[in-house]
């Protein structure tokens, strides 16, 4: 049992007031370790809300530096940060919001060589990445390691997310393998309304907090999609696929795969 300081009781009072959270729930949040992969459009709101909520340890993985074109939606990075590693910029903001949070930074790409090693240190993983190869890598690594994670994707005016716990539908149950390079546009190719990143990222942050506090029903076996043009939200029930190559009855994937990264982005078009 943590002995809360006066300052902590004040800082987290709006959580503690919630019957479903209370002191016990806040304590669970403060002991939690969350890995955020990608310090971009989704990773920004996720990291900011998790820091504010008092998550004990936040790991941030990103190999990029802040670009001026990021600032339209990646609200954790400021104009002064252009050119800095995103993980460094993110760490600074997380600690400015809440100095109690321990931040681990990984200034590298997540790939088959490091994914399992990094993931094993955390209780919950948030996918805030921008490309399919890494989305499949995170899925496979989490399924192999038995870790829960939140999947998130955004494009133009749309968002899509689900939460995976061991034994529930995974990304590969829904989509067997990454689309061929260039077949499906990513944000950097097709654009995205900045606030969509906030909408989807805060859903992922809420799912993370629900996971640790045990509140309500997670988005497991359900794929939530929304279209901000109409503001219609829809959840599609999805079932674990018995023939899934990673989580099915007879998995055929035994090692992590580095799929080819999309090589084209806005700069080349």
């Amino acid at each position, binding site marked *: 049992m943590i002995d809360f300081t006066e300052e902590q009781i004040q800082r987290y009072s709006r959580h503690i007031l919630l019957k479903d959270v209370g002191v016990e729930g806040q304590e669970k949040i403060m002991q939690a370790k969350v890995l955020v992969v*990608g*310090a*971009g*459009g*989704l*990773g920004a709101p996720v990291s900011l809300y998790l820091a504010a909520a008092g998550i004990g340890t936040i790991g941030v993985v*990103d190999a*990029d530096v802040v670009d001026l074109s*990021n600032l339209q939606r990646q609200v954790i990075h400021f104009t002064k940060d252009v050119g800095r590693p995103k993980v460094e910029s993110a760490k600074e903001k997380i600690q400015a919001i809440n100095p109690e949070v321990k931040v681990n930074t990984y200034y590298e790409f997540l790939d088959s060589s490091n994914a399992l090693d990094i993931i094993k240190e955390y209780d919950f993983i948030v*996918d*805030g*990445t*921008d*490309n*399919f190869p890494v*989305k499949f890598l995170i899925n496979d690594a989490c399924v192999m390691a038995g870790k829960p994670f939140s999947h*998130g*994707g*955004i*494009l133009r005016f*749309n*968002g*899509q997310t689900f939460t995976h716990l061991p034994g529930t539908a995974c990304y590969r*149950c*829904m*989509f*067997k393998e990454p*689309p061929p390079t260039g*077949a*499906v*546009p*990513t*944000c*950097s190719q*097709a654009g*995205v309304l900045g606030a969509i*990143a906030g909408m*989807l990222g805060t859903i992922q942050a809420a799912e993370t907090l629900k996971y640790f506090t045990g509140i309500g029903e997670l988005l497991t076996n359900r*794929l939530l*999609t929304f279209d901000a043009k109409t503001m219609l939200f*829809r959840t*599609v*029930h*999805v*079932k674990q*696929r018995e023939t899934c190559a990673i989580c099915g009855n007879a998995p055929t994937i035994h090692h992590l795969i580095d799929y080819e990264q999309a090589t084209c*982005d806005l700069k080349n078009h």
Partner: protein
Amino acid sequence: MAKITVNGEVQEVSLPLSLTELIKQNDVQQPDMVSVQVNDDFVDRTEWDGLQIKEGDSVDFLYFMGGGSL
């Protein structure tokens, strides 16, 4: 005419109708990229031609959505 549900919305279709034809009717973009569930079960691409739609079926098209970081 038969009533079915596609992506949560009721549609009237004339039978017989295969899943492949339904996908065509719904102007699904990049059909080779879409994941399809019929009555909450994923249907493999190889079975689309042979799957006949029935009255009351619920069909969902799931699309890839990337993006987030860059």
